[in-house]
């Protein structure tokens, strides 16, 4: 028995399985979270019907999509049409093999080209979109996939450059090393290079096709973009892939810029009470759930919430065991940070209108890339000049970022200059 677990293949398989299952659940409930957060921001309640507080909504949605008719358009390229969503999904999921979830054994694999592998694999997902749009044999999906291809390629450049400035600081391609480096320096990369972080975040939103960059699937223009012709199960694969990508981009943002699995101020010993945050969080969640249950007037709901509260309490007890506490420490903080970034994604969606395509390209090429490049150059210069010192790096980066942003926006869209229409 013991040797079975020691074998790398078997251990990896188990890890992969666990990550896959967990990820599926996370993605399903990410959709729930999105709907709820959006609803609250829009003075609504969101899903409330399926299960208490709509908690079973993701399951109902999934079932509905599974049971829906799977339509293949008559003149579609059938093989490609059927294959494309799978490509998207596989590309999205496979990347998670290289994400470090915590210190030590909390990784599936730690390749020395980690970040490159992730960038490469995630860029494969684009084929699902292009081919899906093409294979549908319909105008709107085709426009959608063309837009998507152009958009992803453009924003990958900005995101890549932003990532490179982190790599310079960490001096490694390995994600584990990047996180460890942040621990050694006692400060997260976001405080060394906030400009790159902002660029990465914006480019990340664009790469996940989310508002305000959701043009490839802009509902009001392209009636859904590349997945217009998809329905039922295959649509749900796209859907899943998209949200998985969201999780991926947030996880990467956390690992690269926000200290990965590190506790906030991990270098300050006297902040040890923060180590008990998982317990506090679980107790808090239990209390909240209990409060919800007391509010509810439906008997079944009250029971459910009570059970949930008890579960939370029990979990808190288990987590409170020092051994468990120290081992899940990393995963807890990673999850919290990823959720925060995801929340920001949803928040943008609730707030912003959508860019037009030419404006999107302008933002990508004329704003983000110059800013990212300046931050890269400044980071490299400062690393050589002053070495790894926080204040000069931060100051130089901020200065360069503001200067570049000002320069690129001088003749920007913000001016009251109104472009006249292109004559025909």
């Amino acid at each position, binding site marked *: 028995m013991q040797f079975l677990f020691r074998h790398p293949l078997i251990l990896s398989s188990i890890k992969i399985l666990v990550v896959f299952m967990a990820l599926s659940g996370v993605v399903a409930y990410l959709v729930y979270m999105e709907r709820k957060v959006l609803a609250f921001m829009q003075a609504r309640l969101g899903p409330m019907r399926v299960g208490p507080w709509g908690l079973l909504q993701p399951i109902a949605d999934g079932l509905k999509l599974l049971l829906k008719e799977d339509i293949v358009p008559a003149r579609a*390229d059938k093989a*490609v049409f059927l294959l494309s969503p799978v490509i998207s999904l596989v590309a999205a999921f496979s990347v998670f093999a290289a994400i470090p979830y915590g210190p030590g054994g909390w990784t599936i694999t730690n*390749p*020395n*080209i980690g970040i*490159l*592998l992730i*960038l*490469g*694999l995630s*860029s*494969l997902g*684009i*084929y699902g979109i*292009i*081919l899906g*749009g*093409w294979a549908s044999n319909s105008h709107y999906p*085709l426009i959608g*996939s*063309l837009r998507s*291809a*152009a958009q*992803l*390629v453009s924003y*990958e450049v900005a995101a890549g450059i932003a990532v490179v400035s982190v790599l310079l600081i960490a001096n490694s*391609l390995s994600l584990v090393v990047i996180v460890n480096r942040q621990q050694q320096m006692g400060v997260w990369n976001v405080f060394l290079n906030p400009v790159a972080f902002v660029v990465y975040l914006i480019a990340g939103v664009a790469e996940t096709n989310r508002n305000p960059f959701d043009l490839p699937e802009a509902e009001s223009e392209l009636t859904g973009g590349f997945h217009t012709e998809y329905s039922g199960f295959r649509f749900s694969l796209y859907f899943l892939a998209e949200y998985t990508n969201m999780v991926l981009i947030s996880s990467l943002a956390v690992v690269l810029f926000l200290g990965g699995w590190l506790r906030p101020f991990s270098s300050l010993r006297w902040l040890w009470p923060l180590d008990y945050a998982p317990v506090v969080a679980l107790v808090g969640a239990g209390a909240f759930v209990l409060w919800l249950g007391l509010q509810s007037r439906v008997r079944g709901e009250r029971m459910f919430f009570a059970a949930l509260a008890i579960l939370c309490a029990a979990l808190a007890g288990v987590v409170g065991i020092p051994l468990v506490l120290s081992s899940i420490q990393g995963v807890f903080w990673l999850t919290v940070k990823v959720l925060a970034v995801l929340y920001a994604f949803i928040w943008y969606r609730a707030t912003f209108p959508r860019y037009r395509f030419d404006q999107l390209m302008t933002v990508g090429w004329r704003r983000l890339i110059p800013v990212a490049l300046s931050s890269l150059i400044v980071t490299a210069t400062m690393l050589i000049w002053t070495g790894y010192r926080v204040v000069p790096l931060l100051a130089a980066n901020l200065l360069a970022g503001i200067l570049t942003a000002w320069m690129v926006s001088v003749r920007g869209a913000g001016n009251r200059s109104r472009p006249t229409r292109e004559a025909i």
Partner: protein
Amino acid sequence: MTLPQATFLILSATALLSSVMVITRRNVVHSAIWLIVALLSVGGIYLVLQAEFLFAVQIILYVGGIMVLFLFVLLLVNVDVAMRQALFSRQWGVALGTAILLLAELVYGLWRGQAQPAIAAAPASGVSPGNTQAVGMALYQKYMLPVELASLLLLVAMVGAVIMTQKRFE
């Protein structure tokens, strides 16, 4: 047969099969998809050769960049028209003969060369030649000038492509 050997055989079979598909498919998009498969398997072979960095470059640049560009253009130009035209050019017989001759020659040469053991020396274990750092060092120290030249080439190519695809002013 060892695990690397099996991996190699599977990958190379895929690569060869899909390269045949690339040149025989009528639908250009299908050709492109098969080419992507071929490129991915070649990338896998790089991994077998412990060239991780090359593998990453292959995927990011080739598969994620160049092929996306290809597909983009494929969607732009009219695939339908191309599909109705003849698949092969007029001199396809001669061309095929020449190519097969080339293959025969190569195979023959390789078969003969196999007998000589000088090349096929097994690598001494130890430092992996695929070390990313080593590649980087080589690129930016020993081959600095070629790198600069290549970047210039890319710049020229980029400018050229942009200018060529501009719509003509009427």
